[in-house]
């Protein structure tokens, strides 16, 4: 199994979720994170003083899926998360050795 971890722009979440649902992906976990990268932060004002906020709000979406599905999931995320502007984010793929469904104790692909 693979874990696909995508850092995306928050406002793309709905579209990415829909794209994954279209692949019959039944589970995913999302976390609010802050990202630092090529995309520059923005300037904020505080009583006439300017300061730069480097870290931008991003969404981390994690999907664990079968090896077979992994490429499709990656492609679906790329297609649905892309805006073409700097800061669209990354996808990281890692190996998952085991998955267990807590409710039933099922393991492996069954548990996804």
């Amino acid at each position, binding site marked *: 199994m693979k874990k696909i971890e995508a850092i995306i722009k928050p406002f793309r979440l709905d579209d990415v979720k829909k794209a994954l649902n279209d692949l019959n992906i039944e589970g995913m976990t999302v976390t609010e994170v802050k990202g630092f990268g090529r995309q520059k932060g923005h300037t904020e*004002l505080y*009583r006439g*003083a300017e300061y730069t906020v480097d870290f931008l709000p991003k969404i981390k979406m994690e999907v664990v899926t079968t090896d077979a599905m992994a490429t499709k999931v990656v492609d679906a995320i790329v297609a649905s998360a892309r805006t073409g502007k700097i800061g669209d984010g990354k996808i990281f793929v890692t190996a998952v050795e085991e998955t267990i469904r807590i409710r039933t104790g099922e393991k492996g692909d069954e548990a996804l």
Partner: protein
Amino acid sequence: MSRYIGRIITVFAVYMLLGVPAYGAGGAIDTGDTAWVLTSTALVLFMTAPGLALFYSGMVRKKNVLATLMQSFVLLCIMSIQWVLWGYSLAFGPDHWGFIGGLEWFGLNGVGLEPNPDYAATIPHQAFMIFQMMFAVITPALITGAIAERMKFSAFIVFSIIWATVVYDPIAHWVWGMGGWLRNLGALDFAGGTVVHISSGISALAAAIVLGKRKGYATELIAPHSLPLTVIGAGMLWFGWFGFNAGSALGAGALATTAFVVTNTAAAAAAIAWMIVEWAHRGKPTMLGVASGLVAGLVAITPASGYVTPLSAIIIGASVGIICYISVSLIKPLFGYDDSLDAFGVHGVGGTFGAIATGLFASVAVNAAGADGVFSGSYALLGKQIIAILASGIYSFVLTIIILKVLDAVMGIRVSPDEEVQGLDLTQHSESGYNL
């Protein structure tokens, strides 16, 4: 046993004789005036807690939100007791050398429910007393903007009690007490430009200097944790300030009305001015700018509020909005002191400007009990205003430095660097603001 109880009762009985209100044969109480002064008193309390407490605590980091709220709330409590016991007597009691009131009114002894015509002829003396109390409460609370996020709570309490007694009470006596030397001189301060804003603002600067900068100041990002709290506080301050200024008329008539109108007008003008100048300077109008500007306008109009016209209020407000913007965005970084939430930058600077503006714009056409300022053809008032500014400013600055230096030697006034990193909420109060 029953003898023992008997003694306790006797002790209490004697104690209770203090402060028993005498329903004297004195002047007639006007219900409308009393209603307005009591309402105003409640409004000024509301300015401090929760108003100012929120205004300030929204600007600090999450880890200091409760500690910042705490400072305003605990001052409300402590100053309320200080005032009843000795503060009111020192400020408004029988004059000694033009400098301070005596302790004759300790524990409100002799401060009853009949009017005291020296101060307010149509409301109970205690109504005047408690209205004034709220000024004694908010003044040290204003200083907390300069010491935020780093002062030790125990030292803060000790400082506040001493400061109220040796700085606030005397200055209030000079300006407002019967026989006070600035009052006799003829300096005008309708609702506390000198007494409240200059004294607190200048003391705030002194405190910021003595305490030193917060860890990470100007090197790290110290962002406000919740501007909506600050904005709520700003709205409450505006609301409460009607009590502050229009209540200072000590009655509900023409004078209260004119004070009310110019208060609102100056606040509005200052907020707009701040917004525009920040927009021009930095490219964006900010919510915090409007909130800060309106407070600056309220500060500046405070001494002038019973003496100027609405159109003068527009000029006073617009000017102070620009002046305070410059003071916090340009002058503060230049000198490098960490006036964390701009207590000096807004109250010290704005209060000073307001006292001067009173000398410029005051007009006996507005208030016969006032005086004419420069634009009504007389320079005398302006001179008196400058004396009042200098006297109260220098006195506040020097005394604050001395008190803090002594306290620092005796008990330490600043939390440890570790505590500062962890935050005052946890280290001073064992609490966390949020569990969201």
